[in-house]
């Protein structure tokens, strides 16, 4: 460490250990991190599904019924079940991280992490209930 390296005519190469492409499979925490990052694919999928649904709705009653029939196919049911798992995983990890992103104060005191988390979950439940009420029935 104390020796000055000898003069070289070429640029010395930095020492870097090679990281395997599958580095995230070695540890449970790393694996959970990658799963969390991959939830974005499910998020994009839901947008695509929503756009297809809006288009079916625009085209008419028959096309919309056809779209609803399509969603009953086992392939789409299983795909949607997997996507739902990922979207839920996104929501839960997102709300749990909220206290780290939001530093809010009230009367000079910092609002506790638990309160921020809890309020996120309350809003989530309220919105979910509202959407179910709005879209079902009839």
């Amino acid at each position, binding site marked *: 460490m104390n020796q000055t390296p000898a003069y070289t005519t070429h640029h010395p190469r930095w020492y870097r250990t090679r990281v395997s492409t599958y580095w995230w499979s070695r540890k449970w925490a790393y694996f959970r991190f990658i799963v969390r990052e991959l939830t974005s694919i499910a998020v994009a999928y839901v947008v695509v599904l929503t756009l297809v649904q809006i288009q079916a709705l625009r085209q008419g009653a028959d096309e919309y019924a056809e779209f609803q029939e399509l969603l009953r196919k086992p392939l789409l049911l299983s795909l949607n079940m997997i996507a739902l798992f990922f*979207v839920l995983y996104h929501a839960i990890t997102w709300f749990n991280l909220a206290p780290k992103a939001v530093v809010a104060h009230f009367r000079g005191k910092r609002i506790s992490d638990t309160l921020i988390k809890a309020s996120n979950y309350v809003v989530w439940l309220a919105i979910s209930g509202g959407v179910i009420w709005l879209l079902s029935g009839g």
Partner: protein
Amino acid sequence: MSKKSNEPFLWFLFSAGGVVAALLMPVLLFLHGLAFPLGWLQPSGYETTLALVKNPLARLVLFVLCSLPLFHWAHRFRFTLYDGLQIKHLNEVISFFCYGGAIAGTALAGYLLWNIP
């Protein structure tokens, strides 16, 4: 060339999209993907649904629901490829594909929602 980084703006879109996706997507996918097709709950009829979607506020919500989460996806997926698979040399191509896709999806959502017959 001293250019201001647009990373904070992209991060803001990522964050806003994350909130929208977390709040709305689980319930929407649960309803349309499972509860309605499996008959656990009865969906509203075509006319009711169409009338609902024609409401300006509903259109705005649907537009936001489509647009912001796409930017969330773009940002997160970009870094998944970057860190996870370590495809660093294709950074420009990946960014173009991700954010370009989000912009295209936003434009499509705007078009579809703007003129509903």
